[in-house]
């Protein structure tokens, strides 16, 4: 499903990710935890091919390569559902239009296709009654639910969540975690990055700790919410990348 092989990412002098290797299977849930600047968002951006690795190889499904061509990158992103900390909703469109946009991007324009899929996604996140509202009329929790509806409306095999509860107060955060957990239980693989230990625990997936751009093997104490389920990532087929 997703494989990182000796992936490094350098921004100038700073090493954001350092020879990271890991792998996840279909339907799995992986939580990357770590402090701010640990390389979590870089890792997500590598999955979506927003940035290219300085060395190593990122494979997502059938998409493999250091730098995919523009059209292939678009195609890859259509197979993913992405949730951002700051929601990234279009403020001039209603909740319905925001979610429907993701359907139309996949090339489905007929109302007969767009409307039921959009309404179903909104129903799943409990936001059907707010479909005509604009993002500015929603609470932070509702905005995130709208963003989740947009992420799942195309039934992606993988949902990526970048600090999904970062901008939410505790009650909304709990609701969002429950929602993500349900999405995962319904079959979607889930990759979440977070600075909050409780999120990793609540989601109940495999927790990998990122520290200064590295996945340290056996460094977390047993019982720690950041402890890997085995050695850092036992399922990862590690192979040296081209720049390694």
């Amino acid at each position: 499903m997703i494989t990182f092989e000796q992936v490094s990412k350098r921004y100038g002098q700073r090493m954001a990710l350092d020879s990271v290797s890991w792998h996840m299977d279909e339907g799995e849930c992986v939580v990357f935890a770590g402090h701010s600047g640990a390389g979590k968002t870089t890792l997500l951006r590598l999955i979506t091919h927003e940035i290219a690795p300085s060395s190593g190889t990122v494979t997502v499904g059938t998409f493999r390569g250091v730098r995919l061509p523009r059209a292939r990158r678009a195609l890859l992103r259509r197979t993913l559902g992405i949730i951002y900390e700051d929601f990234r909703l279009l403020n001039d469109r209603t909740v319905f239009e925001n979610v429907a946009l993701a359907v139309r991007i996949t090339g489905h324009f007929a109302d007969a296709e767009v409307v039921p899929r959009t309404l179903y996604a909104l129903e799943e996140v409990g936001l059907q009654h707010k479909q005509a509202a604009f993002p500015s009329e929603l609470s932070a929790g509702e905005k995130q639910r709208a963003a989740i509806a947009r992420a799942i409306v195309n039934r992606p095999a993988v949902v990526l969540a970048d600090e999904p509860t970062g901008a939410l107060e505790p009650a909304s955060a709990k609701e969002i975690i429950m929602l993500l957990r349900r999405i995962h239980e319904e079959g979607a693989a889930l990759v979440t990055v977070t600075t909050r230990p409780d999120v990793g625990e609540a989601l109940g997936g495999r927790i990998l700790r990122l520290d200064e751009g590295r996945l340290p093997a056996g460094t977390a104490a047993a019982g720690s919410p950041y402890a890997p389920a085995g050695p850092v990532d036992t399922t990862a087929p590690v192979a040296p990348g081209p720049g390694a």
Partner: protein
Amino acid sequence: MHLYYLREAWRSFRQHQGLGWTAMISLTATLLLCGVFLLLTHNAQSAVRFIGDRREMVVYLRDEVTPDQREALIARLTELYGTATYVSPEQAWEEFSQQVGDPQLLQAVDQNPLPASLRVRLRPELLNYPAMEQAAKQVSQFPEVEDVRYGGEWVRRLDELQATLARGSLVVGVAVALAILLILYNIIRLTVMARRREVEIMIRLGASDRFIAAPFTLEAVGQTLVSALAALGLLFALEQLTVQQVVHVSFLPAAWIAAFLGGAALLAWAAATLALARALRSAGP
């Protein structure tokens, strides 16, 4: 083409009306300039064609030419240069009298001084200065011919005028095309920048370049077509005003209007394609 793209183009225009109106006003002014020149060219071409159609060669005959020789010459000239018509001295005098119109002046002339002549309506391929000059030289060699007149100087000027108009049309056309490309290129880039966040989100969601670009392209083509129609409207008003105030001017024919609109739309599409190819690459990851 999906209705969705049209709705998005309309939404974009409504949201960035300032940019949209700036584009349309600039485009209307540019296209009006182009339209004025087209109108001038069209009317000048019509005038040139009208005058050109009347270009003829007058072959004056010697007094001693017999009717048989004359008929043989008519046949020969018709075969070589175009339709030749005999004008007797009496006919020539009658035409002259009608043109002068003053009986007292005409009475002062004792007898008809005008010679018999042949009027040759030249074939279309001979309606230019070098060909006419050559034909006149050849005809003057016939023994029956006294003299040949064809208005060489004004024929030459007419040809020069036509060539100048053609060059002018090309220069103005290229200048207007560049102006349209430049205006739209910059307006589209500004619009993409104004909607940068939206474009970036769409790129992150996996939208193809075509999906993102289609509304921008439609908006540009729509703005240009509206501007072109506005320019044509203004041009028509200008033409009507000129007709009332000065001289008869005919408006652009349907084919020219279609070419004007089609050309403007094509330029808009080209400008949008160029601008978006660059703008989208710098807009998102």
